[in-house]
């Protein structure tokens, strides 16, 4: 049963990430490879707030959301001017810069979490506390699964409401014809900034959920491989609607479990999993580029 809860928690975390990323990819039409770094921002903020400030789950997560919101400008401001390959390169630049900061803001002589050794470099931050809300400790895996599922459903509901609001329709209009939307007097720049703010904030929430469950965070959380996995979830499931990212997260998280069931050797399991992700991307682009459950064709 614990294994089921473990899978459920991972699904919750990645559904939140994929739903947020879908707003950028499927509703703004902008491919980004920086999302893992926002996920890691949430994880590190949560870790530092709980470890150093003794904050609870909600304030620590809120801190991560605020930091991710501010840093979202790093991708949303370039989105004013760049699309396609050039925007992808900007997002890679942001990914690399944030990864470098997580990896290099360290002085191994100093205590982890202090200003001189904020991230503890490659060793990461350990001993992150489990979630506690209003004096209730979520210290069992079942209670954590319940908490994370509640959070994922709440995030999903908020995204669903946003995407079915006039704001969501404005994003679709911008994605399909930016010049026409601008011609109708819509403020395209602000809408893109808001979309990226929501997407990055949701990644930070997922990052906090991840750190509170794993109790550890290191720079690999912000690696390019993680960004590729997150983007693959949206692209395989299908961008531009609500159900696509959920399907994508389900499919991509199912792959390691299938490999586990068919007894793929542990030595090559990680490689085979990545190969399966790559193969899925190629096959989808040839046979169904809008994704399994999507309705938007990537430009």
């Amino acid at each position, binding site marked *: 049963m614990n294994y089921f809860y473990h899978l459920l928690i991972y699904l919750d975390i990645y559904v939140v990430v994929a739903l947020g990323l879908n707003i950028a990819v499927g509703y703004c039409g902008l*491919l980004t490879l920086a999302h893992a770094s926002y996920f890691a921002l949430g994880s590190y903020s949560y870790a530092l707030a709980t470890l150093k400030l003794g904050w609870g789950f909600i304030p620590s997560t809120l801190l991560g959301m605020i930091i991710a919101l501010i840093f979202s400008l790093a991708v949303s401001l*370039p989105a004013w*001017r*760049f*699309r*396609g*390959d*050039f925007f*992808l*390169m*900007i997002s*890679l*630049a*942001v990914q*690399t*810069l944030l*990864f*470098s*900061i997580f*990896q*290099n803001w360290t002085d191994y002589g100093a205590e982890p979490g202090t200003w001189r050794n904020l991230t503890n470099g490659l060793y990461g931050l350990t001993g992150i506390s489990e979630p506690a809300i209003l004096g209730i400790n979520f210290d069992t895996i079942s209670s954590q699964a319940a908490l994370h599922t509640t959070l994922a459903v709440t995030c999903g509901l908020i995204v669903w409401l946003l995407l079915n609001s006039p704001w969501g329709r404005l994003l679709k209009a911008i994605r399909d014809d*930016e*010049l026409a939307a601008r011609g109708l007097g819509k403020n395209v720049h602000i809408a893109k900034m808001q979309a990226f703010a929501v997407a990055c904030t949701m990644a930070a929430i997922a990052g906090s959920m991840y750190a509170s469950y794993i109790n550890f965070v290191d720079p690999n959380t912000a690696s*390019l491989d993680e960004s*590729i996995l997150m983007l693959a979830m949206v*692209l395989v499931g299908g961008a531009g609607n609500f159900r696509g990212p959920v399907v994508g997260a389900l499919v991509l998280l199912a792959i390691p479990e299938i490999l586990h069931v068919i007894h793929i050797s542990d030595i*090559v399991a990680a*490689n*085979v999993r*990545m*190969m399966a*992700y*790559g*193969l*899925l*991307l*190629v096959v989808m*682009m*040839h046979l169904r*580029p809008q994704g399994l459950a999507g309705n938007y*064709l*990537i*430009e």
Partner: protein
Amino acid sequence: MQIFLNGLINGLLIAVLALAFKVVHTPTRIFHIALAAVYAIAPYILWASLQWKLPWYFGVMAAVLFAIGLSLFLELLNHAPLERKGASPGIHLISSLGIYIIIIQIIAISWGNETKAFRTELDTVFSWGDIILTSSQTNAAMVSVFSLLLFFIWLRFTNLGLLFRALADNPVEFVLRGYNMSSLRLVAFGISGLLGAVAALLTSYDIGFTPYGGLPALLLAIVAMIVGGKWFIMGPIFGGILLGIVRSEVGWFLSALWENAVTFLILAFFLFLRGRKFIMLKSRPEVER
């Protein structure tokens, strides 16, 4: 001066890879991320040849030919079918990313994740006054300059080069005038594989190689291409040398860990401050093809 020269040689290697990327990107607009896999696999082919006790020059030829073949294979089986379906640049990019992931994992499963090296002994050193260069550095510099020069001659003074420039300049008119674009695209992918293999072999001889070394190298090359601007050959050379020198200085005066961060800061600087004028886009980004 020593740091400057180290940076210059690294920059030339970046320039060769940047040119390999640009040869495909300029005429086809394909963001050829799978070039990172071509770059990653070439040293392994040489490695396998050496393991089979074949002469090194045979191994180099095998590696280069394999890289060219793989590059052509990618065009024939992935990009050409997508092009026929009228796929967008985004779809080409994602499929290329998928292929990159597959090939890298095959390399990792076949040869392992650890770093390999072609030489275990210390490299021969040449010194002129205060300057010290290793034989792998001098080889890298000479072969890079030779490759760039050869490409320049091919592009400027051959009929195929002229056709290639025409395709890069205006693909639609090129097809309307009755030229065969498919075969020229194959030439582009072939040259890209060749240049990618040359850069990979020279770099791996100097610092070793891992399955995952291709993407960081390619990203650097793409930054060099963007920084270099519109010029076909001089752009990647200028961008590559600039990045090589700056990265060397950063590695020496700050820390090698910050090299990537500074590289992408340079990219951000060029994209924002020099912006579209520098990269010479003719249309607004939102109405780009």
